[in-house]
């Protein structure tokens, strides 16, 4: 119970940090920009948009890049060596303290994804309708030339409408994005503990740059490359959609398995290291 209390309190104490507020502001500003063509289309068709655009939004290369960079910025508090932690670790001990921080990272990753989803809906207001189905507007957009005509900032895939229900795809995207963010956080934590923060940030930024590589790989090779680039799996909405006759992403089960195993490996490395590290406290952020 103490462990759960500590994890939950750590989350509550930190989730209103100014960097998370910056994240929300920047994301919201870009969402307004990204939704503008869709809202114009909605106005012209005189038909509202459903709330399910989030999975497709995450398939936008430029939005995803921004999302990851902002998340890396939030992660610059790793490896939690701020002086304020001193009194906590003294009470929790090394292992229980790091379990609390890992739990917090998972909750933070989930929150960032959930916030982005909610903001994507808010940015569509007031042209939004609550409907269990995909809604006529985005389905029509996916089947006609409206996407290029209105210069949509993120794509809609007709195959996704057939393969998934809206709720299924939303939950799948939220789950995979949460796990990707968690993996980025854990990989950064491992590198912070074993090497230093600069290497951790460079590694995370390097991974985001790999998105560009996947986007520019020949379609025939793209799936093979994307198997090794978890950051591109946030585009899970395109999993059923071939590009030039070739699928873009590996299977959903492959993504989930690899993400979970990688997070477990990182957690083991962190827990092993925490037993031997020295705590040199730094100023609070």
């Amino acid at each position, binding site marked *: 119970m103490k462990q759960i*209390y500590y994890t939950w309190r750590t989350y509550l104490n930190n989730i209103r940090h100014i960097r998370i507020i910056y994240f929300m502001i920047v994301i919201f500003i870009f969402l307004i920009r990204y939704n503008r063509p869709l809202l114009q289309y909605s106005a012209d068709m005189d038909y509202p948009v459903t709330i399910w655009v989030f999975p497709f939004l995450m398939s936008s290369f430029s939005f995803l890049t921004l999302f990851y960079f902002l998340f890396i910025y939030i992660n610059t508090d790793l490896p939690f060596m701020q002086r304020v932690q*001193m009194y906590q670790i003294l*009470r929790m001990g090394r292992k229980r303290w790091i379990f609390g921080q890992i739990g917090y990272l998972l909750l933070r990753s989930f929150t960032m994804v959930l916030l982005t989803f909610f903001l994507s809906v808010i940015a569509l207001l007031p042209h939004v309708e609550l409907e269990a189905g995909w809604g006529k507007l985005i389905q029509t957009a996916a089947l006609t030339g409206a996407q290029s005509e209105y210069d949509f900032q993120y794509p809609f895939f007709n195959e996704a409408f057939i393969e998934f229900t809206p709720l299924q795809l939303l939950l799948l995207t939220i789950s995979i994005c949460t796990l990707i963010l968690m993996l980025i956080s854990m990989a950064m934590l491992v590198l912070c503990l074993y090497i230093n923060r600069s290497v951790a940030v460079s590694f995370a930024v390097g991974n985001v740059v790999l998105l560009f590589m996947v986007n520019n790989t020949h379609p025939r090779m793209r799936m093979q490359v994307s198997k090794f680039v978890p950051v591109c799996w946030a585009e899970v909405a395109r999993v059923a959609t071939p590009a030039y006759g070739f699928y873009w992403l590996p299977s959903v089960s492959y993504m989930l398995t690899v993400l979970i195993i990688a997070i477990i490996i990182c957690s083991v490395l962190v827990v092993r290291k925490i037993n031997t590290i020295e705590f040199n*406290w730094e100023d609070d952020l």
Partner: protein
Amino acid sequence: MIEVNNLVKSFKDNRVLNDVTIHCSPGKIYGIIGYNGSGKTVLFKCILGFLKPNSGEILVDGKRIGKELDMLTSAGAIIEEPSFLKNKTAYQNLLFLYRLRNKPNKNHIIKVLETVGLDPKLKRHVGKFSLGMKQRLAIAQAIMEDPEILILDEPMNGLDKNGIKQMRELFLKMKSKGKIILLASHNKEDIEVLCDEVYEMDKGVLTQIR
């Protein structure tokens, strides 16, 4: 009982603690004086388990820090400048820390805050506290679980005359209850008034001077 035997701690080529030995018994206050950078804080961090010594050992009640004991979690401590959750009140900060190991006891937190001279009903966030108030809060978090060992690095920093008098009385009271108190201070008067044994740390070498 704390036994520090032949402790050596280096950061790269810089030897910060050089064969330090000190034995501390319950019911006594041990004072350590020395210039900034002489190694006092590093010694305290080693005892608490934040830093790993290169050689030597630290035993607390016969248990070795870093082996049988992960960290000295049973100690109350103030190391370096006090730091708390800035957007919480003093009461909220203490309650959070207290609940990490104990069942919530609001009356106890209120009593501890009053003991160190802070108003438990104060709604001001810690981020807006003066250094003296933060120091009082740091002392409160160190003593609130009634630990057997207190490790206090410059506990009187930022306190006014009245505060210093209050804290001296508090530490003497804790000593009379059989606590072990390790105290680093620049203030000679604190050391004179409070300490049973006095040591000087100079370039990592600890020498008993009283």
